[in-house]
């Protein structure tokens, strides 16, 4: 106020500092709805992933059936918001306009569960300091999940790329074991006619050559990795999704990769992701195709 008074005329129709404040009170933000929870009488708190990071915002009255915002704040929506800054609590969503609704993730149980798993990994691996690359990865993955004929393959691709962004890039190209104090580093070139299995060692951050796998087997933590699974991990990590989409994803390898990645991710998170349990409980159901 004092600075304002010295810099501009106190009698000006619209003082410069008021202009500044009114502009800053409303802002526009685009993001993906990751999570929501009920709050108060009819409100929801929305967790939004934006290219600049993760934010929590308050959506007032959206549980009322007549709310005009509600349909634009559903899970996995990509939505543009007009937000009012609040001093003491969450900033307030005053308008919402979804650009992508992702209906395919709302009404399909398997795809819906995978989409929730996508969110779970974002929430667990990132404290909120997101970047544009994470936003793009999540947006692409949700889009692929909605359309791809094999959503499980999309998820395996997503895991590889999320781990890279989270700083836990698995090494699938060279043996990560140490022998007699020296790194092995043998290049891994799995072939279908390989007789001996490779290994995976989450605590060392990658795969083991057959020799090192045999040598470490007694230590307990290393798991077996088939040549087919290893070459899939290499391809999923190296390629964009379009390139791997054309390859056949054999059921047995799919099951192995589910298991290997669950172990790998649990190790680095220091806890097991929980969302995919929803699919497991459902496996007995006739006609369902789930390998989780």
């Amino acid at each position, binding site marked *: 106020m004092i600075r304002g008074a010295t810099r501009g005329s106190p009698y000006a129709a619209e003082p410069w500092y008021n202009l500044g404040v009114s502009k800053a009170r409303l802002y526009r933000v685009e993001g993906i709805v990751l999570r929501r929870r009920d709050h108060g009488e009819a409100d929801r708190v929305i967790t939004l992933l934006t290219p600049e990071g993760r934010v929590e915002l308050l959506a007032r009255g959206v549980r*009322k*059936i007549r709310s005009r915002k509600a*349909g634009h704040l559903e899970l996995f929506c990509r939505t543009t918001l007009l937000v009012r800054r609040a001093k003491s609590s969450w900033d307030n969503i005053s308008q919402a306009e979804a650009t992508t609704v992702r209906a395919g993730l709302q009404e399909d149980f398997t795809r819906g569960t995978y989409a929730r798993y996508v969110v779970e990994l974002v929430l667990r691996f990132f404290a909120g300091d997101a970047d544009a690359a994470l936003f793009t990865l999540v947006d692409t993955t949700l889009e692929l999940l909605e359309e791809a004929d094999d959503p499980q393959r999309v998820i395996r691709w997503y895991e590889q790329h999320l781990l890279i962004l989270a700083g836990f890039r698995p090494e699938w190209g060279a043996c990560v074991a140490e022998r007699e104090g020296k790194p092995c580093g043998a290049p891994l070139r799995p072939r279908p006619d390989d007789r001996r299995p490779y290994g995976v060692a989450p605590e060392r951050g990658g795969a083991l050559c057959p020799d090192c796998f045999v040598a470490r087997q007694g230590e307990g933590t290393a798991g077996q990795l088939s040549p087919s699974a290893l070459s899939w991990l290499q391809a999923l990590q190296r390629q964009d999704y379009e390139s791997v989409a054309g390859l056949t994803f054999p059921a047995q390898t799919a099951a192995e990769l589910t298991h290997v990645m669950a172990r790998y991710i649990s190790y680095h998170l220091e806890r097991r992701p*929980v969302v995919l349990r929803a699919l497991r409980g459902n496996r007995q159901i006739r006609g369902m195709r789930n390998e989780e």
Partner: protein
Amino acid sequence: MSNAAIPPAVTQLIETLSELPGIGPKTASRLAFYLLRGKSELALRLADALHKLVENTRFCSICYNITEQDPCPICADPARDHGLICVVEEPLALLSLERTEQYHGVYHVLHGSLSPLEGIFAEDLRVKELEARLRAGDVHEVLLATNPTSEGDYTAAYLITRLKPFAARLTRLGRGLPVGGDLEYADAATLTRALEARQEL
């Protein structure tokens, strides 16, 4: 609120009240001091009502609605169609549907929606009990009336995969309902239209 000037009994009431949904510490203090202010009779009536709530209410052993008698009046009513089960997330949604006076079947209350991100799985809801009702036979239609929200749609999608083998007919409350809201807030006219416009799954 840990103020030496406030007696522990009041602090405890304030803390307990603020555990209720939609009540922050500020509202809780206001309510607590309102109850204290002379009208002790209101506090006693409230205490009595809460006591009765805990003592006299239970879940209906058939539909899991909240009731004073088991089975609940709806499940015990011979005039209702017991072969038509409407599945709702919460008792409040059931109340909204009853208010339309257009629904003559029975209910099943799940007590929540499937939300694996929040750690809520099918075994945390009354799904097994619903499946048992269908297995017992004589159910000709299951009307899924979960909320028209992401969570409600996801729960319905799960129920479809799980109940398909048992239910003769699975329907979903009409899409005339705007997306994103909770059924408990829907007015009778909107719900009546949604009931009439229910869709085959």
